[in-house]
């Protein structure tokens, strides 16, 4: 019954979030620290659980003493715990920067929103119940809106408004899908949905999948459901964008992985032809379009936040392609790349924060000469972009290699897909190298902004991770290997949750 305690990952942050208004009465800055410590607890505890499930296999945590499929349960597996851990970790690093950012009037609300957002993302990865997932997606999207609209100014308002419009459209699609599922299968438990999904009338099933896809792709930043991305990123603070990309985007893609491969997919060969619709093809096309649009749009931008926003969109597209290709290698590659992207992109967003403060502008043309002023930040930015582009011996290289391998080995029209992806990758390489070049241009920058030690600490930790994964990817490989096996093994998922059936 030890695994039941995993619910603490959700309960403790909730409890703390409810208490935060009291803390804020004492001191608004205190709420930041409380949030930080809570996420810290979550990270440590999830790390412990991750090692536990790595050793002992998947577990479930039941809630209210009602066993699945009757009650709500959490599903703790290498895959879900891995991503919960990464989400908590990224959030922890971001909060390190948030702690020392200059205090504002709305700090208490911001820290509650951050806490709930991270909690919800973790809960989405852990939950084994589709309606529960919906509830947490709601919490996630509302708290994200709060984060985006932090300063009540025009641009962040605009971004937040766009996000909330699309997020509510998305949630209504999700709710419709859940309604259809409950109406037809009579259950909300993911395992029993997985068990009985192929019994559905194919047309009906494809409607459910379409709706679900539309709903979750808003969070996963995939075209055409991602119109919120650039404006929302632009409106938000740079380091908080690390949360948008590293937490919200990661969660969205996680759900896509879980739903399309384990729940809706048909198990053995991971082919997701539902009804007469080839969902592999649909997702691949969406992914390729997202990548193409993201990279080319980023090429034409000057604002660093928008560039990074478009770039994360494009990376999500690449990962979506791996979901569509859905052979074992591509799933490995997709998980690997999702992790790498979370680290490198967070690094970039966090580095961008002090740079914007030093230079006084998010416009990359104004960044010229930063490397001469603060070499550490410039190098950290280079490391982050190298990780993202996939320069050898940085983390993204291995995952991109695996993606190319898996897509090419799928053959057929995948050659077109890989061609488009690599064209986009070329564009991405170009605009990142352009920024790095600008950093080292000869130019004097006058600034009195001094970078706080915590920012350096956050940057240092992420840089070390990016490089360490690049040099020694084998330590992550064991986790990814188990996670991928957990992901594709549909019958194992069902039997872990529902007990052995047949």
């Amino acid at each position, binding site marked *: 019954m030890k695994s039941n305690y995993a619910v603490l990952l959700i309960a403790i942050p909730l409890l703390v979030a409810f208490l935060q208004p009291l803390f804020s009465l004492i001191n608004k800055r205190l709420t930041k620290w409380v949030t930080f410590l809570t996420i810290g607890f979550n990270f440590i505890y999830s790390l412990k659980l991750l090692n536990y499930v790595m050793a002992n296999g998947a577990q479930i945590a039941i809630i209210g003493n009602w066993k699945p499929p009757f009650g709500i349960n959490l599903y703790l597996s290498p895959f879900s715990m891995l991503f919960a851990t990464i989400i908590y970790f990224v959030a922890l690093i971001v909060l390190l920067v948030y702690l020392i950012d200059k205090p504002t009037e709305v700090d208490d609300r911001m820290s509650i929103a951050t806490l709930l957002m991270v909690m919800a993302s973790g809960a989405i990865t852990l939950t084994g119940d589709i309606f529960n997932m919906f509830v947490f997606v709601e919490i996630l999207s509302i708290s994200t809106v709060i984060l985006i609209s932090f300063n009540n100014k025009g641009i962040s308002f605009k971004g937040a408004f766009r996000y909330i419009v699309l997020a509510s459209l998305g949630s209504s699609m999700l709710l419709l899908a859940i309604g259809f599922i409950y109406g037809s299968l009579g259950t909300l438990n993911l395992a029993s949905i997985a068990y009985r999904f192929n019994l559905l009338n194919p047309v009906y099933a494809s409607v459910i999948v379409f709706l679900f896809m539309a709903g979750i792709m808003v969070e996963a930043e995939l075209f055409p459901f991602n119109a919120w991305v650039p404006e929302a990123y632009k409106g938000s603070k740079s380091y908080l964008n690390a949360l948008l990309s590293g937490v919200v985007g990661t969660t969205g893609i996680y759900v896509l992985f879980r739903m399309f491969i384990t729940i809706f997919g048909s198990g053995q060969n991971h082919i997701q032809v539902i009804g007469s619709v*080839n969902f592999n093809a649909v997702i691949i096309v969406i992914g390729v379009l997202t990548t193409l649009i993201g990279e080319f749009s980023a090429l034409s931008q000057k604002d660093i936040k928008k560039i990074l926003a478009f770039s994360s969109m494009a990376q999500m597209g690449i990962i979506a392609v791996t979901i569509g290709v859905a052979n074992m290698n591509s799933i490995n590659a997709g998980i690997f790349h999702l992790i790498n992207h979370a680290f490198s992109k967070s690094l970039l967003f966090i580095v961008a924060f002090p740079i914007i403060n030093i230079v006084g502008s998010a416009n990359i043309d104004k960044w010229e000469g930063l490397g001469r002023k603060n070499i550490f930040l410039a190098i950290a930015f280079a490391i982050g972009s190298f990780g993202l582009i996939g320069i050898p011996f940085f983390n993204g290289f291995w995952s991109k290699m695996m993606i190319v391998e898996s897509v090419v080995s799928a053959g057929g029209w995948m050659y077109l897909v890989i061609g488009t992806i690599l064209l986009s990758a070329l564009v991405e390489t170009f605009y990142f190298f352009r920024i790095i070049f600008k950093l080292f241009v000869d130019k004097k920058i006058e600034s009195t902004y001094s970078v706080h030690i915590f920012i350096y600490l956050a940057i240092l930790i992420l840089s070390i991770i990016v490089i360490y994964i690049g040099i020694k990817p084998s330590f992550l490989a064991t986790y990814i290997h188990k996670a991928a096996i957990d992901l594709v093994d549909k019958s194992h998922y069902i039997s872990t949750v529902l007990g052995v059936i047949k």
Partner: protein
Amino acid sequence: MISNILLYTMIAAVISFALGQKLKAVRWSFSALFLGYVGFQLYGLYGQWGMVETHNIFSLGSINFSLNFGITKLGWFFAFFTTIINIMIWIFSIVKNMNEKEERGINFLWILLAGSNLAIFFSVDWITFFIAWEIMTWTSFFIITPGWKNSFKAANWYFILSMFGAYAMLVGIWWLYATPAIHTLNIASSIALLAKLSITAPGTVGIIIALFVLSFFAKSAVFPFHPWPAEAHAEAPDDFSPYLSGIMIKYGLYGILLFIVPLFIQIMKVNPNIAMVNGIPVYSYILAWFGAITAVLGTYLAIVSNDMKKLAAYSTVSNIGYAVTSMFILSSAGVTGGLFHVVNHAVFKSAIFLSLGAVKFRTHEREMHKLGGLATKMPITFLTFLLGIIAAAGIPPLNGYASKWIIYQALLSGHFPFLTTMIFLASTGAFLYLFRALHSIFLGQLPRKFNNVKEVPFLMQIPMILGILSMLGIGYAPGIVLKPIGLAVKAMGLTPMTVENTLMVGKLSSINTAVVSSTFIGAFFFAFAFYLIGKKRHHVEPLDNYTAGQDPEEFGLTPELYHFALKFYEPVKNIFRPIEEKLNIKNYYRALVRNANSFGATLSEMFKLSGAGSSMIFVLGLVVIILAGWML
């Protein structure tokens, strides 16, 4: 052993980075010394053929990533010669960078580049090769453009084309791996298996070859990728241009020799159905033509350029053209000639670029019409350049002659009259631009502002002198280089040419270079004697003879406007202008980039719609996806 060397290289790069810009003399000397040590180690590795070192990185799913280094004859040959040339260049760099106001911190990148250079030549599987290739690409990008705006534009030519090639190769590598009949990442076994596969699936093999060829051609600036060297060489740091031209541009040729040429040779052996032209596969013939076009095009572009570094860069392009043409003849002489020309070109072109670097070091000018008459002021530099262009033009007794001789042997004995004509045309054209460059820079009238120019410091002269000696040495006794080349050629499955130290035996004729060299050196001294006893020239101010004694300043004239090198080949340019206007590859590339930018700008407009607009996109997208999903 190899991995130790590579590890030391990384450590050396870190040390160099840590030394910082204050200690620039120390870091450059350190790197030169370090490379000397590496060269020594490499020399010790000679003969350990077939040794392989494996380092597992990780395995996930069905792929196992590992780094495999081994010593092949071709690889050792390239690694050793490039390292020697690199040491020469770095000796030059010590003084050059000591006197530079800001040294730009490229040293540690360059050490990494030197390391990846070795890794390319020692990698025995495609993953390692690709990793080394990528590291080489990005480090060289940042060396070419260490923070100068002009150089960034130039480096982009190089970088985008290179990355395009690299990605083509990446697809090629995984396509190889994904093909069930091959399913290997080892270079040597992939050649054998591909050759076998060409019997049953010629289409697949053709595409894979095309992907690799794209990559190698892009790196070596073969047509249609020829625009980048001129841009990159011209704007790169002056001490990096020799490396760029002498070593880096050869990686593509190395790839061709490593993979494409042996593959064609294998295919000819095992596949009887292959379509042939003149005894070589038709693909090879087409690729040889690409080389020939490059040679002619490079020559033309060199003729019409006024920038001395661009001129030398285009000359490099045309020399690459000779080598490519020669290699794709696939005969023993052809491959030997190509390989030999690669070495010779590395030697004489780095010498040329070093001397140009020396000129620019003292004068800070790149345009040829602003220079002139430097021969007396900078004698060693002049001598280096003189011998360099003699070698480049393929005149005995220097090394360029020897390799061109073999190339002509190969082309004629293989009965390729049209290719021979092209190469001959390019070779003749080389005289036009080379002697123009010599005359514009070193001969003629010395502009007044350069009256105080001195010869470069002795340390910078050392590499130039070494260059002179090796050009003469290889020209006198080509066997020194041809013997190791013979080993490499033999490893490809061809019978190597018969060579001795000073004797080359071709199919059509044979030649004793010692006799040729002695004759020419004798003739040189004979002519030099005339120079000594003849009348000394009368020194005239540049504008003295143009304005009939009037003060040129009144007309707003400058010596530069009346420099004979200005618009020297304007008539030639005029002849080809109609073609150039219609068929300028550079404009196509520029248009591509422009369109990519505006395409991106258009796409990003989509994300500026209002909330209502974005929800419209949402619903419209959903409808389209559903409809498309059901159609597909």
